């Protein structure tokens, strides 16, 4: 397995990030949209956790809500504790102090996420100027080191370049340099490789893994791409329509997916541990619903091959999976009235 589990002692340490009962609702002109509902999530030091789910499942909204980066139209309930400090409802100055220093982000689009009119060196240096009170010169000097750290050749020249002068992969490395400048405890990577081609992807994932190994950074990787999860994550969380429907160790989820949604996503996907390139999620018939309010039902019921009357009348809680086999290092939980149990994951034909 390339995704080596972090040392046992680290997993038992108190979580760096602890999310409890997180819900996000947007006020829009056409009514409210419930994007995230009752999400519980924790990140141990040095752990890499993946969040997967189809488009519109609430992955990005979950990620943004952690450091309060959502627009004013979003209402966030629940609790987000970063090293014990509550961030939901925290003062702007508290949030600012945490952002970039304790919790940092890498976004999907490396072109539009960098400011086109500032040199990349300046953009990396900025973080250090704010959080470490370095002078502009010192910060630029550090920026050179950071760009070199994330694998940008001739970094001393590159700091003077503008984003449009760099390739997509290089820009994403700049984003990473910016994110890790202050050695954050938690790194949130929202589709860090989606816009990049496969060979570049592998390089970016190597950089992330290397950061975890060297600095013990905890990383939350959000992706559509099960190949990325298989490659880098220790644990996976599967989201559907704003809720967590299943979570388990990577190997475990790939072997014995319990939720029919997870099983659907996983059919025809790679085996963990192999650098298998890009693997988009398997198409499941139907669409992720946009919900005005969260119903007391399984929101996947109308797309689920195993749905019964019970599924549309009560929401299944997230509970330990009914499995005979050993669960391994990480708990395996599922929110389903009819989990798949000991059946192995379906093949494409079986699911189709």
């Amino acid at each position: 397995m390339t995704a080596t589990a972090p040392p046992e002692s680290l997993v038992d340490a108190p979580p760096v990030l602890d999310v409890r009962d997180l819900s996000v609702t947007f006020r829009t002109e056409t009514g409210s949209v419930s994007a995230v509902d009752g999400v519980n999530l924790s990140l141990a030091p040095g752990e890499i956790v993946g969040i997967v789910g189809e488009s519109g499942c609430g992955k990005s909204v979950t990620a943004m809500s952690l450091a309060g980066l959502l627009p004013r139209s979003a209402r966030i309930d629940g609790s987000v504790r970063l090293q014990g400090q509550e961030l939901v409802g925290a003062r702007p100055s508290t949030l600012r102090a945490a952002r970039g220093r304790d919790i940092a982000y890498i976004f999907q689009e490396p072109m539009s996420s960098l400011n086109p009119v500032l040199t990349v060196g300046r953009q990396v240096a900025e973080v250090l100027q704010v959080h470490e009170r370095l002078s502009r010169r010192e910060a630029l000097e550090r920026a050179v080191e950071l760009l070199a750290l994330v694998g940008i050749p001739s970094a001393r020249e590159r700091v003077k370049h503008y984003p449009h002068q760099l390739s997509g992969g290089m820009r994403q490395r700049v984003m990473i340099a910016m994110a890790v400048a202050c050695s954050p405890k938690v790194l949130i990577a929202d589709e860090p490789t989606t816009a990049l081609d496969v060979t570049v992807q592998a390089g970016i994932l190597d950089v992330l893994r290397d950061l975890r190994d060297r600095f013990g950074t905890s990383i939350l990787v959000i992706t559509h791409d099960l190949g990325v999860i298989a490659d880098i994550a220790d644990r996976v969380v599967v989201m559907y329509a704003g809720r967590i429907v299943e979570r388990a160790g990577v190997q475990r989820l790939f072997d014995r997916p319990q939720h029919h949604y997870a099983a659907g996503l996983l059919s025809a996907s790679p085996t963990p541990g192999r650098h298998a390139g890009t693997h988009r999620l398997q198409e499941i018939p139907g669409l992720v619903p946009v919900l005005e309010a969260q119903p007391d039902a399984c929101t996947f019921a109308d797309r689920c091959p195993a749905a019964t009357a019970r599924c549309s009348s009560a929401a299944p809680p997230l509970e330990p999976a009914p499995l005979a086999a050993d669960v391994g290092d990480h708990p395996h939980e599922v929110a389903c009235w009819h989990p798949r149990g000991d059946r192995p994951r379906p093949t494409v034909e079986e699911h189709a």
Partner: protein
Amino acid sequence: MRGYLLRRAWQSLLTLVLATVVVFLGVRALPGDPALALAGEDRTPEALAAIRREYGLDQSLPVQFWRFLTNALQGDLGTSIRTGQPVSSMLRTALPVTLELSLLAIAIAVVLGVGAGVVAAVRRGRPAEWVANALALLGLSVPHFWLGLVAILYLSVATGLFPASGFVPVSESVAQNLHHLVLPAVILGTGLSAVIMRQTRSSMLDALSTDFVRTAEAKGLRPRAVIGRHALRNSLIVVVTIVGLQLGGLISGAVVTEQIFGLPGFGKLTIDAVFQRDYPVIQAVVLVTASSYIVINFAVDLLYSIIDPRVRVTGDAS
């Protein structure tokens, strides 16, 4: 960048020559005979012929044009038919007044417009935005001359806060000079500042919802840095274009404003010359106006490449 500048300079020169031809012909197409205007009571054919000969009006158009062009290149713009003074010296006294008025108006408009635009965007949906929007609407819809007259009535005549008319050169007294120019400059700048405000507001709103502003926020930057360094700098690219396009309007606005405030500037020179069919002066005035348009466009282009690094590169490539 060099090649780009050279090409621009060449284009500018061509535009200038064209403008000169158009002006030359345009002035001669005006109804009315300057000789008649000059002759006064003595309208005998001999007197008129003498006048025409003196000012070269009896020559063919191409000859007149050639003479005008070669003289202009030597800095000799001819002699005013109306005052008998060299046109170039008339310009030398009038131009600084207008230049100062315009620059002051632009400065005021940019400061007010950009400031209000940023506030309106950042405080979207709150009272500050409504106030800024209402002021912008007023600035756009109320004509200069009316605003100027009202200002004179209340701020000069009634309260005596500002002089109602006249001008003091900077060389005599800086304070006096500003005192005379502030009010006209504010009036002249209102329209422009309203345009700038609206443009700044809308491009700031765009900028504030971009991914890179979110990145800036995710870095933990202060709002001042997020708004100023990240959002505003990108918005200014659009604002600069708009300002550039609006400066032409500013020149014509200056003509009216100078008239209202009795400033001895370019506008006054122009109007007097047109009424008197003072060919040499009209020609010179239009020539200077055309040149200033060209210079302004050039300056706007330069400013672009300073603000937006991407323009610098395309300039290089071409």
